[in-house]
């Protein structure tokens, strides 16, 4: 087996068998590993095995048949989300004074990798006091068709004014409807998404 392949000789005219030229079998080389296999089962054994395995398969599917389906009937049943789930954003107000927490610093817009937040700040005046700070967000828009729900805005916000909510049902008929304004983000959202309890 381990004989080295003979160097190929240039094609020669047909030599008679008695001329002393030795013809060696082609060797596959040193790196060929012969795999040891068990002998193939006979017809009776393989037939029996096929039959048994078929029955085993039928039993397996019958087991699925008797148990309850695992399908979640989506529009009626909803998958509960974890408390940390990052869904649609929410803007917050102070509980006592009802002033907006957002001071229009645009750190969220700076942190946003998808560049989907637009903040235009304006000065608070004594007559028109909107936020607790010096300035407030006159325009606060999030384009949810661009948002990747990474949560960086939440991390960047120094006043916890923006957090990620739990709502994941955000489809709409028009792209312009997916640009959420400050009023929409401040509004108490419809709790459409069930929340998963501790340890569930």
């Amino acid at each position, binding site marked *: 087996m381990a004989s080295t392949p003979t160097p190929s000789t240039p094609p020669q005219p047909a030599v008679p068998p008695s001329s002393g030229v030795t013809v060696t079998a082609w060797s596959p080389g040193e790196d060929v590993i012969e795999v040891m296999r068990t002998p193939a089962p006979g017809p009776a054994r393989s037939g029996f095995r096929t039959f048994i395995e*078929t029955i085993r398969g*039928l039993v397996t599917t019958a087991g699925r048949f008797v148990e309850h389906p695992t399908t979640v009937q989506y529009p009626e049943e909803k998958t509960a989300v974890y408390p940390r789930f990052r869904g649609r954003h929410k803007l917050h107000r102070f509980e006592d004074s009802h002033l907006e927490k957002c001071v229009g610093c645009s750190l969220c817009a700076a942190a946003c990798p998808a560049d989907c937040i637009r903040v235009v700040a304006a000065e608070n005046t004594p007559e028109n006091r909107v936020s607790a700070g010096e300035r407030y967000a006159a325009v606060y828009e999030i384009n949810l068709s661009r948002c990747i729900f990474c949560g960086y805005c939440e991390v960047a916000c120094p006043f916890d004014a923006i957090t990620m909510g739990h709502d994941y049902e955000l489809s709409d008929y028009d792209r312009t409807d997916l640009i959420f304004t400050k009023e929409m983000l401040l509004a108490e959202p419809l709790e459409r998404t069930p929340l998963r309890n501790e340890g569930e």
Partner: protein
Amino acid sequence: MIAPLAVVGYYEEWWIQVLKAIIIFAVGLQLVPVVLLAERKLLGRFQSRYGPNRVGPYGALQPLADILKLLTKEQFRPSTSIGFLFAVAPIISIVTAVAAFAIIPFGNVQSIFGTPVGLYGIDVSIGPLYLFAFSAIAFYGIMLGGWASGSKYSFLGAMRGAAQLISYEVSQGLALLGVIFTAQTLSLTGIVNAQAGMWYIVPQFFGFLIFLTASFAETNRAPFDLVEADAELVGGYNTEYGGGRFASYYFAEYLNVLVISGIVTTVFLGGWMLPFGIHPPGWVDPFVVLFKMGLITFLFIWVRATLPRLRYDQLMTFGWKVLLPLATLNALVTAVVVVAAN
């Protein structure tokens, strides 16, 4: 009036025959959507999901919606197809399936309002031969449909269908021979009556298994559904079909499943007989037969949910090298036993 080509077991008045034909066809027609829905629901359950449950209560109107959708579609035909054959092929399939349905006995001769009526389409003295004759013609439906489509996928599917049907029809016939030897008759009502003592599934268990396996192939059902192997042939012989013609092929396929269930019920499960010597009144018989047919159809769906599709060479090897010798052996052993016992 030509002489009948086969002796018919029992004759009724012509108007009873017509009425019977209409009723049996109507029942068969109603059973197909039920089987269609049952298949989709059961397949879902076997795969831990619900299956269709949106149209109507528990999805009960799903087949109606499917059929309405198919029938209102445009009758599309590829430019490379052969028009006449393309249109005629689904009709061949559906006609043969309905014709084969006629021989399934749903009960013995009953007296309905004083008129004796056999609860079957026709009781021919060549029952199994009639079945095989029509399943042989049914193959033209697939073959012509695939060929006349002018598409390579359809053609390949039809070719596979031809080879498969021819291979497995032999085993199917040989598996029935054991029963025919034992019952000494080819009439299906005769075979049922011969099972009064014991259903043939007990002495002919191997015949039953072989017949059932060959029937999976004959009806182009999984695991032998190479004819329409979706993964490689798009849809097989019916790739180019749509709308009503596609619905006809579907109808024929499910009616064939029902016919085979009926034949298995009749030949191996004692037809309208109940076990343990229970003799209910005559009007129960059709329901007993329908219940047994339902069991066999359930088995068809169960197997479809379980087994993967065979490779083409495995199909041929199995048909010719395993099933055919076993069927021959079964017939031979039965013949020897029957001769020795008499």
